[in-house]
């Protein structure tokens, strides 16, 4: 059954106000007992009506892409080995056999003794390309987006590089954070751009890679 939000033509304010629109779903995964918790959105993303199933490792495993050796649970095990938040691309099949390409963003879940008990985070569905008609509505109805286009495009460029996503997907990420934090997209994008220089990571390898791209890119432009 199609999601009602998807099948009706949304008004612009709905388009930015409804989390379901972005196909973002939350999860929690407890290591001991391998217990899962899905938000209603994540259940829908897998093809279930909210509350219709209890997610288990077996259920999650049944959605594994046949070409993948490991499934998302192994991704979440990252928190057993490394601190800090993480993100990773992943794919799975929903109950209709449709492939979903998702960005999984997670962080450690700890108890009050400081023991790492699991992982919590979000799936961002990057496969359903933002419906063109809806995007037009969004663009026309939100002059803010036009006014702030430069900052948004710059922030998108940064996300595209960091998360290895395309422009639409980068936009979805921004939209998601905007909704989640009830912050204007324009303000969010501008702040991301302002903070780009303070991102602490080992930039040397990236810079070396990019040096090569920058110095040789002219040779690869089709005539």
């Amino acid at each position, binding site marked *: 059954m199609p999601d009602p939000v998807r099948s009706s033509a949304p008004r612009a304010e709905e388009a930015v106000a409804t989390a379901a629109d972005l196909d973002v779903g939350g999860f929690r995964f407890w290591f001991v007992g391998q217990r899962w918790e899905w938000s209603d959105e994540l259940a829908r993303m897998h093809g279930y009506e909210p509350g219709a199933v209890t997610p288990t490792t077996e259920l999650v495993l049944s959605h594994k892409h046949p070409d993948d050796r490991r499934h998302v649970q192994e991704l979440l095990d990252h928190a*057993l080995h490394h601190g800090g938040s993480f993100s990773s691309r992943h794919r799975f099949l929903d109950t209709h056999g449709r492939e979903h390409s998702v960005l999984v963003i997670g962080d450690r879940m700890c108890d009050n003794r400081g023991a790492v008990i699991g992982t919590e985070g979000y799936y961002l569905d990057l496969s359903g390309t933002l419906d063109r008609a809806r995007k037009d509505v969004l663009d026309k109805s939100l002059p803010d987006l036009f006014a702030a286009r430069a900052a948004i495009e710059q922030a998108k460029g940064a996300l595209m590089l960091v998360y290895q996503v395309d422009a639409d997907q980068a936009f979805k990420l921004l939209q998601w954070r905007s909704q989640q934090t009830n912050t204007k997209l324009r303000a969010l994008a501008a702040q991301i751009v302002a903070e780009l220089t303070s991102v602490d990571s080992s930039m040397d390898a990236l810079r070396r890679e990019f040096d090569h791209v920058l110095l040789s890119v002219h040779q690869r432009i089709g005539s």
Partner: protein
Amino acid sequence: MCCCLSISGSAAEVGLLDITQDVSDSAVVVHARGEVDSGTVDLLGEALAAGLAAAGGPPARMLVLILDEVTYFGSAGLNAVLSCYEQGASDGVAVRVVATNAEVVRPIEVTKLDGLLRPYPTVTDALMSGSG
């Protein structure tokens, strides 16, 4: 008395996880090598169940699980080992984990399960720990 049993995966999984079992007078030693993830964990679970059965006696022996050569260890493996420990506790079999590799030791530590599954550096250390 000594017997040796080797268990490995189905055709698709050969080489990912290999498990051997050695039974001596004092202990049953289960040695796992390779990757323990959700695809191979059933093998480990079966090997641990067989190990517990062998260790149950009489006479009761210790079950020593060597994970030093495990190259991938996630929550699936952690649960299998924890279940084995708990089953052992209820069957009166002391279960000892031998591991010094970060791949195995770190998950046990960050989850603070090292109180239960204290990894011993060597089989000798594990055997010397007594069966308490």
